[in-house]
């Protein structure tokens, strides 16, 4: 299985039925592909829709209905159009159950850096700082390393997105939970050993007993 698909499938299992979820653009947005519709999950996009649906068939796009990346989407039955004040009211007011975001670095304190590389890439934070500060649960979905260099580090060297400790990191190698005590290795991907994860991770990992293998099937509808 391709790395990004594996990550998206694993993240999908974290999503509770009926919850309100925001998926970042890129890899995080793939998570929607692995969620059964029966779960009744509503996707929110920060540009102003609750109840984001799949890209419509060609010729049925609407220029006034896009996701936060500008791509055409549809609206599911029961969708709501909202303005930016309501959209970020949902995000910052603690009404969003989960956000899934990409990451440049996550550190031992569970801090995320994902909005700029000084001197090289300054896209801006968009809604990322609000999402990480405001969502009930934050999952970072990212490749474990970049060009062989670990992205999970003792302390972020890139500017932080928030000082809030994120809740879970899902990579193609492992599921890691930042806790008060440090980063706990919760699961490893099929074919990956604890030592493989350690070798690809610059921060210390806490391993408590046997580490189970990632489950990747679709979550059971309730």
């Amino acid at each position, binding site marked *: 299985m391709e790395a990004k698909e594996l990550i998206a499938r694993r993240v999908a299992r974290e999503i509770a039925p009926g919850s309100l979820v925001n998926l970042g653009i890129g890899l995080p947005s793939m998570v929607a592909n692995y969620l059964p519709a029966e779960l009744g999950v509503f996707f929110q996009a920060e540009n102003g829709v609750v109840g984001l649906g799949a890209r419509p068939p060609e010729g049925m796009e609407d220029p006034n209905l896009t996701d936060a990346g500008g791509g055409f989407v549809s609206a599911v039955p*029961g969708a*709501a*159009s*909202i303005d930016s004040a309501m959209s970020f009211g949902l995000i*910052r*007011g603690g009404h969003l159950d989960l956000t899934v975001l990409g990451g440049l670095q996550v550190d031992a304190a569970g801090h995320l850096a994902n909005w700029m590389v000084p001197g090289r890439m300054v896209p801006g934070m968009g809604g990322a700082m609000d999402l990480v500060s405001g969502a009930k649960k934050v999952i970072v979905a990212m490749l474990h390393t970049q060009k062989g260099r670990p992205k999970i580090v003792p302390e972020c060297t890139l500017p932080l997105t928030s000082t809030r400790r994120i809740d879970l990191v899902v990579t193609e190698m492992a599921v890691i939970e930042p806790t008060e005590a440090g980063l706990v290795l919760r699961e490893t991907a099929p074919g990956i050993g604890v030592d493989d994860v350690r070798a690809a991770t610059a921060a210390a990992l806490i391993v408590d007993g046997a580490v189970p293998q990632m489950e990747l099937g679709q979550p059971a509808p309730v």
Partner: protein
Amino acid sequence: MKRAIPLHEAVELIPDGAICHVGGFMGVGSPHRLLSALAQAGRHDLTIVANDTAMPGRGIGKLISAGCVRRVIVSHIGLNPETQQKMIAGEIDVELVPQGTLVERIRAAGVGLGGVLTATGVGTRVADGKPTVEVDGRTFLLERPIHADFALLGAHRCDYVGNLDYTLTAHNFNPIMALAATTVIAEPEEIVPVGVIPPDAVKTPGALVDHVIGRMD
């Protein structure tokens, strides 16, 4: 999807002592069936956050008459002499808040702001004991957010996703209160199938609504 619940189940959700945001303006846009049932059920020690206490026999006025209320945070009690009598008798604590400040304090709680910086009330009794903050040489009161255990909303239409709309002057505090409570209970005038309220007409996304009170038996 949200199954509508019978009125008595909604009443059972709300315990004595609960802090409740209640929508409505002089009773217009209030959840009338729910308020009547709460009064009949004999709830007590409630804290009511609302624009006003309506008038005797109407909306929140029924809770006041029935002795359900220990405290109100409101902008106006002028049309309910019972609230004034109970205030003077020491049975109800009344915190008076300027109407615009009240809605912003509720909104602040709902959208995750630390407080409200407002010019309203500066130099008046409303400022007593409150911190002030200077911004660019002007003085503002720092008013604190008001979160509630419950938001009891009167809506116009509701679908089974929980999406709400409101009509005319029955909007008032309802859309803002929907953001600012642990549990949100909506009493719509009408329940409609999903899709009947188009996305552009939804004023409270269903994700904010926990319970919908069903049609009358």
